[in-house]
């Protein structure tokens, strides 16, 4: 069974072209041309990953992203023509896992999709950090016995940090291990997702105890 990708983009030619690239890379694409139908299409198609254009007729990409995040942790990659700080950060804060700036190459598109679909491996079956227990096989996090719902990306981020407690990870290290970037990438990806993760696992996200910031270097768990 090939991974299903939902392409939400209003540009017919681009949608079809992305479909061709995805099909030839071994994915099963489905399409949605506007923001208003996106959620319905998402529920119906149940994709493994969503490619979402930021500028859409009807609801914009940011709003669609937020809607999908409300009901699912499915990886979302934003397609953006903008690299302006606010647009990218808005998309990430709305729950997008990653973003690709137009115009992009076919190889970049497939590499980013594969990086998001690849499950994270671990030597242990369960990892504990503070009050949290990570069930690696079941992709579940229990806090004091009750489950917390994390997106796969958030789970991977937490697992990466928790596997080596006390070790400080730089943002670049996290970009490589969690996002699969092997060259310099946008460190805001890390900042925004650490914030999202903290808001789910910490008692007081402004005063984190589990994932702490090491000023000038990066983050560590425990």
């Amino acid at each position, binding site marked *: 069974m090939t991974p299903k990708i939902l392409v939400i983009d209003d*540009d017919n*030619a*681009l949608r079809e*072209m*992305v479909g*061709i*690239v995805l099909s*030839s890379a071994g994915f099963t694409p489905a399409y949605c041309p506007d923001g208003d139908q996106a959620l319905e299409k998402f529920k119906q198609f149940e994709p493994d990953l969503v490619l979402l254009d930021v*500028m859409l007729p009807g609801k914009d990409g940011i709003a669609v992203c937020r809607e999908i995040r409300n009901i699912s942790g499915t990886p979302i990659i934003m*397609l953006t*023509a*903008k690299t*302006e*700080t606010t647009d990218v950060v808005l998309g990430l804060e709305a729950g997008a896992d990653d973003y690709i700036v*137009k*115009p*992009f*190459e*076919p*190889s970049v*598109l497939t590499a980013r999709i594969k990086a998001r679909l690849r499950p994270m491996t671990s030597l242990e079956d369960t990892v504990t950090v503070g009050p949290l227990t990570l069930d690696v096989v079941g992709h579940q996090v229990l806090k004091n016995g009750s489950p917390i719902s994390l997106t796969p990306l958030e789970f991977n981020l937490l697992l990466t940090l928790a596997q080596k407690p006390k070790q400080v990870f730089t943002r670049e290290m996290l970009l490589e291990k969690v996002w699969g970037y092997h060259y310099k990438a946008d460190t805001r990806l890390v900042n925004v997702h650490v914030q999202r993760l903290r808001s789910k696992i910490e008692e007081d996200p402004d005063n984190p105890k589990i994932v702490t910031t090491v000023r000038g270097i990066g983050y560590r768990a425990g």
Partner: protein
Amino acid sequence: MLKLLRRSVQARAVATTVALSGVLIAALGGFLSFSIGNGLFEARLSQILAESEAAVIDVQNTFAASSVNDEVALQTLLNSVVPKLEATGVADTRRVALLRSPGQAGIQLLQSPISSGLDTQVIGQSFREEVRNSAGRVLYQSIQLSFAESGITRLSPGIVVGSPVEIPLAGKYELYLVFDLSSAQQTLDFVQQTLLIGGLVLIFIIGGVSYLVTSWLVRPVKIAAEVSEEIADGALEVRLLEKGEDVIAVLARSFNKMADSLQRQITKLASVSKMQQRFVSDVSHELRTPLTTIKLAGDLLFEARDTLDPTLRRSAELLHGQIVRFEVLLNDLLEISRYDAGAVRAELEIHDLNQVVGNAIASIDPLAKNRGSQVEVVAPGGEILAEFDARRIERLLRNLLANAIEHGEGKPIRVEVGENAHAVAVNVSDRGIGMTKAQLERVFDRFWRADPARKRTSGGTGLGLAISLEDTMLHGGTLDVWAAPDAGATFRLTLPKVQGSEITESPLALPNSEELGDKA
């Protein structure tokens, strides 16, 4: 004090008012004091003369009516004249002398009676002569009296009145009455003192009043100045209070009108700038979406080029190359329009310049190898820390390196890094074809190329140096260039170590300052 006068209109106005009114009050006071003194003297004088005439007549009558004929009786009569005259006067300070005129036949047997405390020296000889020749008229003269009072000599103005008197048996005598005017002088002193104190108080009051009046006048100007400052600081909606119909209200209205107009212009400009940014953003999206499709399609064709026949394969290769070029051009265009719209913000952080230079050289390495250019680096050891946007500075250096390689004709490229107390600098030099002075002047122009006939081998957009210059200005740095035909070119980037500080001197020198094309 002088500084205050120079700085404050109000202080100047008050000082001028006080000075002018001081002069006027002094003149007025002087005049008043003089005429009061004069008046007092005249009044006293006429009284004195009247008294004196009465006294003279009285004395004449006394002698005429007497019928003394022996010297002792005459002496007694003479002696009685003085106390009588001393007592008759209104003023208690009248002194009397009855002196015998000199130059008469016969010896003087009788004593001349003189009031005690009267020094006959005060009666001048010339005055006595005038009196003798006055033919019976009463004459007067102003004199200075001096009294010794408990060891202190007191001077006071006085008047001596004299008249000849004929005394039977004794011959010609002169009767002198000496009047002390010190009481009139005291009155005058008191008036003068009062005038002086009054004048000083008046000047003080005038100073205070003019201070109040000027501050009332200056206040609206001060408020206008404060409001101007606020507007200059960006509070465009601040206005002056318009009240009344006077000149100050006119000032306020004109000022507010000006502020309204400025605010409209600025708001308009801001909205134009916003529209421009919006346009850039829209163009970005609109162009990038079709370009993405083209790029994806082109790449699929390019990757499958080996399965195509030679004509189609070459077409796919050309398509691929030009799509890359198109993308670079689009990015450069968008970057420069972002600068034009003022929408660029530097992401400033402390970075090691050596490392950024290293990254730029590494990324340009394939091009250098391709063109056979060696890149030599001369840099001080350790970290060279400065505050800058690493992405932009690396791009800038990459661009300078690419230009050097493109125009360096395979000769070595030299990169030099330097620092001083306030600035850091990078020189990128090639020893290639160089540029003429005319070319040098246009080197930072958009879409300008040193040699239009040259092949566009490195696919530059012609915007590279224009963007580099913008990047440099964004950092408050300088980008200088030296070049000479067939001697190569050197570009020097100088950046302040701390943003906002002034660069006085670049840490690195250019080959020859005379051929300098200074920019930014």
